[in-house]
């Protein structure tokens, strides 16, 4: 049979394709039916947080930081409860990372503050003297892309059924509604409101001034995102 295949490239190619596609069918398809159910307490990401997530991705933070706590005592001691599949139900793309040059960030919002992130992003050594992380000073001047974050939210809601503007169950039995803007203008206003809450706790005067003038530097969005990781 193999000799025959070697003389008939078309059938050879079909044969190869069937053999390589087999594993994917068996392993991937069953999971698609069931893995995306959110656990209670998982809510859609707010507009400013989405813009911050985009900043996180833009700067490949996931190259050095994981967002996946494995079920080991050492990891739960260090980072908090191990990660659950349903917590990632609205994560597009997933950001688990593959290397920990720095620590895991899946629950970083539980133990770091706005002030800490501000100092850390400007000059990591100011809070971690022997850190090898580079500083990200340009995030204090570049503006966050609110338009794209809003388009991402809309896409998530329209194509993937992410429950914006709908009650989402919380751990304490209550429900929360994550609001999504009806128009781009409203989106900018909402993002600015969120940004003001973050900058109230920041020190950098230029950032405060920018937000007061209606602009949102990347750092503000990034901190909103990092604070949301709990």
């Amino acid at each position, binding site marked *: 049979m193999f000799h025959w295949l070697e003389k008939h490239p078309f059938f050879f190619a079909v044969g190869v394709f069937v053999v390589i596609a087999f594993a994917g069918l068996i392993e991937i398809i069953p999971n698609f039916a069931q893995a995306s159910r959110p656990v209670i307490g998982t809510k859609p990401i707010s507009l400013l947080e989405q813009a911050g997530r985009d900043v996180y991705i833009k700067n490949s933070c996931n190259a050095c930081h994981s967002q996946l706590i494995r079920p080991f005592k050492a990891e739960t001691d260090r980072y908090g409860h191990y990660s659950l599949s349903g917590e990632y139900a609205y994560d597009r793309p997933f950001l688990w990372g593959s290397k920990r040059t720095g620590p895991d960030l899946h629950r970083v919002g539980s133990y770091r503050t706005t002030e800490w992130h501000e100092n850390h992003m400007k000059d990591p050594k100011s809070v971690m003297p022997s850190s090898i992380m580079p500083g990200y000073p340009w995030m204090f001047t570049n503006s966050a892309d609110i338009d794209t974050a809003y388009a991402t939210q809309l896409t*998530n809601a329209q194509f993937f059924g992410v429950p914006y503007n709908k009650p989402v169950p919380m751990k304490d039995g209550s429900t929360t509604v994550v609001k999504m803007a009806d128009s781009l203008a409203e989106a900018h206003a909402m993002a600015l409101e969120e940004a003001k809450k973050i900058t109230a706790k920041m020190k950098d005067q230029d950032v405060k001034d920018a937000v007061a003038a209606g602009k949102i530097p990347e750092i503000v969005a990034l901190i909103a995102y990092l604070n949301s990781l709990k």
Partner: protein
Amino acid sequence: MENRPLEYDYTVAKMFMFTTIVLGIVGMTIGVILAFELAFPSVNTILGSGLAEYTNFSRLRPLHTDAVIFGFTLSGIFATWYYVGQRVLKVSMAESKFLMLIGKLHFWLYIIGVAAVVVSLFAGVTTSKEYAEFEWPIDIAIVVVWVLWGVSVFGLIGIRREKSLYISVWYYIATFLGIAMLYLFNNMEIPTMLATSPAGETGIGAWYHSISMYAGTNDALVQWWYGHNAVAFGFTVPIVAMIYYFLPKESGQAIYSYKLSLLSFWGLMFVYLWAGGHHLLYSTVPDWMQTMGSVFSVILILPSWGSAINMLLTMKGEWQQVAASPLIKFMVLASTFYMFSTLEGPIQAIKSVNAIAHFTDWIVGHVHDGTLGWVGFMIIAALYHMAPRVFKRELYSKGLMAAQFWIQTLGIVLYFTSMWIAGITQGMMWRAHDEFGNLAYSFMDTVDVLHPYYALRGVGGLLYLVGFFMFAYNIYKTMSSRPVEESELQNASPMGA
């Protein structure tokens, strides 16, 4: 024309040889910069703090991986295809104007794609998926480039004179099909500009931005099904294609066993795709899938070692060639590193070992002993074999080649030993508890302890890069400074001079 050897047309092969070398230098240089950035963080602002956004680790890291995978390796695959394909199918590209056009189109569109990738990654335009960072416009361009290569592969096969497909061609076909399937499924994404706001606004935000069709655990599953098997169909399968052609040609020895090559080919095709789950051990993907990933990774040793043993036994009775020829040295060491890497990988895929190895530098070491030793050496060897034939000149310097071999080998050894020690140290420190059950070390303690190994890794990478420059110089001199031969060297070994 009867009884005269075919005159093969190497126009496209030469173009891709050129990009193999240039993009190899780019990718490896960035790699060395990254290595030193981790050892000495001030290197991040090497061009001043004003340009830090573009020289800092986070922007350069995807550029490094993509330049080496899709620049250096892929160019090497294309270059060898446009050389090997003609020869084993006994047909010249000059015989078909259509295939010649496709070949050139393939090359130029590839160059445009590379340029777009470089610009977009510097700008921070990325989907964050490792080795698939490109946004949808570039993805579409890549698919077109890939289809053109497919037309070239199957076109040449279509007009072949040799009835039976040689082993290397099997592997090139598998490369084409495997990457096509993986790339398409992993890059399913929706451009965000397609969304409409309740107020009726459309085309909001960056036009090139998209989000993945898959969420969370499913996204991870598809990504590592892709990521692991991009290694299979980018770093394993096509490189096996090369060694099956170049080692017998260069050594004048027939392949040791046809049956073993059959077994290892079909075995590799079947087993490889199952193993992606080993990237997700102890994650939130279902347990059975993690176990499958683990088990199949171990089974994967069989077909991998099958090819490698077949290659090493091809040298049976001719081992003096290894001592005499640096080119054979490159290929034999490549096979040895392949065996080493395909043993190391399954070891890391064992759940208890993975608990320590995952997220550490040991993984980085594993990737690099594979890519530097196996992929890098084999592509270098292939180009050394091709250069005298393609340019119709004797190879410039055998001595330089031998020196390069030893410098690069030393570089690889420094690289993987430092990363082994770093990775295992890191993994053990992360999990260590003191007698009261508290964590024994802070995360920063582990960062501190890695510094000497990071510095050593930088040195290892630098040695490899120096060797690569010697390679580039040797090929450049071969191209330009020796007298042109009358016609292509038909049988002479490049070592013959």
